[in-house]
């Protein structure tokens, strides 16, 4: 059970935060098809930051002394770097779709093409291979939270709660969940959030009330870029051992799917991401999941092909959608460039 929850969270959290990134863009009226590209870029920046800081030796002393608080700070800095550069990268999309009123699908596709190309181009030149890794050690030894930090011995038990949510987890996961909550409240309970959403539904009406639609759309897309960049690094940190290779296994597109699946609402998105994460986790490790702890690996003994389990997350999404999509409603003005003169 512990294993199942931990693994599910590892898959679900990047999806959740990047899907929320999509919500911020689309609620402001910009289709952010570039989530995948921004994730790839953010992952690269985060890993590059970790790599360069390690080479500079800034945190070597902390590592040697086992000062895990400082190392968690290092992780946060890397997340911040990824978020900032993700936001900068997303400016390309905002500029094209807000200022130049370009087709947002094309702009997003361009960023999706640009990110892996640029990232691989630089990784090849920096590392002389197709993946950029940490300069020393791995993500588990540098960034993972372990029970020894809290004075527990190797054989001591932390209890169900401790071993599930504290031992062998990453701080990044919880930061993402916290951000998800804060930003959802921002979107629904503040003046800024209301204004942002109004620009995605009826920008003309919003403008007539004195809201600057361009600024709001820039804000939505920039927040989106920051979240997606950070989500990309979190994905690389927790599932790819802090390595960047110009690929996030289609997670950006999956996040887009989770966003539509969640009907552009944060709570539904969290549910959708968890469901998807659960099936992703089952697919990755169905043969070693012991559901009720009686030593019987039920899913493995059913004798169903591994390929079927890998297909399951996508199949389940389609089937669930078939039942729920009649009610699905996208923000009304998304994808339409705002033109002041238009009525």
């Amino acid at each position: 059970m512990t294993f199942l929850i931990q693994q599910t969270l590892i898959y679900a959290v990047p999806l959740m935060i990047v899907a929320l990134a999509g919500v911020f863009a689309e609620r402001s009226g910009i289709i952010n098809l570039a989530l995948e590209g921004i994730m790839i870029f953010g992952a690269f920046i985060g890993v590059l930051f970790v790599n360069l800081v390690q080479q500079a030796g800034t945190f070597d002393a902390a590592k040697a002394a086992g000062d895990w608080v400082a190392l968690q700070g290092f992780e946060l800095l890397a997340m911040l770097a990824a978020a900032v550069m993700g936001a900068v990268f997303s400016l390309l999309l905002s500029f094209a779709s807000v200022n130049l009123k370009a087709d947002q699908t094309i702009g997003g596709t361009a960023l999706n093409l640009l990110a892996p190309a640029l990232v691989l181009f630089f990784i090849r030149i920096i590392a002389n291979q197709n993946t950029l890794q940490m300069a020393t050690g791995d993500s588990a030894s540098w960034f993972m939270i372990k029970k020894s930090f809290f004075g527990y011995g190797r054989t001591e038990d932390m209890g169900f709660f401790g071993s599930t949510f504290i031992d062998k987890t990453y701080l990044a996961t919880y930061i993402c969940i916290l951000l998800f909550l804060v930003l959802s409240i921002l979107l629904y309970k503040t003046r800024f959030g209301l204004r942002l959403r109004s620009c995605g539904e009826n920008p003309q009406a919003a403008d007539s009330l004195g809201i600057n639609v361009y600024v709001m759309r820039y804000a939505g897309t920039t927040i989106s870029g920051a979240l997606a960049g950070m989500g990309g690094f979190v994905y690389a940190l927790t599932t790819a051992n802090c390595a960047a290779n110009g690929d996030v296994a289609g997670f950006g597109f999956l996040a887009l799917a989770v966003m539509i699946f969640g009907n552009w609402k944060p709570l539904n998105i969290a549910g959708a991401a968890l469901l998807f994460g659960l099936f992703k986790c089952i697919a990755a490790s169905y043969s070693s999941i012991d559901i009720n702890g009686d030593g019987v690996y039920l899913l493995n003994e059913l004798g169903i092909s591994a390929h079927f389990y890998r297909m399951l997350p996508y199949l389940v999404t389609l089937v669930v959608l078939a039942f729920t999509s009649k009610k699905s409603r996208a923000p009304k003005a998304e994808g339409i460039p705002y033109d002041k003169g238009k009525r």
Partner: protein
Amino acid sequence: MKEKLGKLWGKEGTKSVLASLISILIGMAVGAIIIVVVGLNNPNLGPSGVMDGIRLVFGGLFSTGREAGELTFGFNPTNMGDMLFRATPLILTGLSVAVAFKTGLFNIGAPGQYLMGTAVSLMLALGIPSEAVPTWLIWIIAFLGGMLAGALWGCIPGLVKAMLNINEVLACIMTNWIAANLVTWIFDGSDFRNLVENTKSGYIYKTSFNGVATAKLGLDKIFPGSQVNGGILIAIVIAILVYILMNKTTLGYELKACGANRHAARYAGIADKRNIVLSMAIAGALSGAAAALYYLAGNTEFYWSTYQTLPATGFNGIPVALLAASNPIAVIFTGCFMSMLDIVGLQLTNLTAYNEYITDVIIAIIVYLSAFSLVIKMLLTHRRKHKAAAAAGETPPAQPPSDQGQGEKGGGEA
């Protein structure tokens, strides 16, 4: 004469072509700038490396290698033929995306349709015994089978969109990954894996193991040493057929009407649901044909354990279609252009310390700029108006908007 030129200039299509050409030029220029910046900051490259890099970006297709440390250029039939060979699937996936665009759908599902086409045409080409059936018949069956598989796979997003109102982008993404897993499942443990050659069991047999290969049609004489075959001609014929279908038939008109405004189309008595499914099926068939032509060539191998990656050829259909402004004829040229950049990338990797990803950067920048094509077109119109106004002292009347339909056809003049 001048009048004629003026007319040509005024056409919407000419402006589309010009806008695309400007995008291409700027994209290549930015690529060159990146090469300069990276080269000057990298001790391995230096100024001479920069010069080589830039010359290859612009003329890589005509590169003939290195002689005494200097790059040589000239007609290179191998590069030329390989360009045509690689263009074949790109043209078809580009068409697939373009048809869907014209009907108001975003077919991001081309990779999945491509995979299904690959699997079915390979199974047919390798599974039908060549002792019993003539190989040309097997080729045709496999080709049509691939198209059919793609069409059926494309139908799924179309159906769920039409019947259940599921966003087609989402359904396409899901079917992509389902296809990737399904194809791996089909081939995992099957007899189609190449078990004869050592260390090749990760791949499916080349279709030439069963004697099935696309006819060369004399193209190998023109481009010796390359992989080119008759597939490129088939792709061009299909592009022309798609052009006729979309622009000269009632069905094409109905499909486009649904894309422009689904509700208005239904009001006009067009079966909108049927047309959505149909246009996705056509798009899927084109992607399936792309896969069939690529893998039936007889000299290509399919890496079957593909559940973690989707084929890039499918995604590359998107920029091909965008750059061509979804015009089926223009897709032929943009497909060739993309594959040319591919060849340029290979030359860069082989001959300099740069790597092939710079050409991907160039493609991305071109696509990004093509999103501005409206702005570029507007600038072109403005400049022309200015000039005319300055010359004649009067403002010419604005271009009537009825030229829009003309513009779509005009793009073929590239």
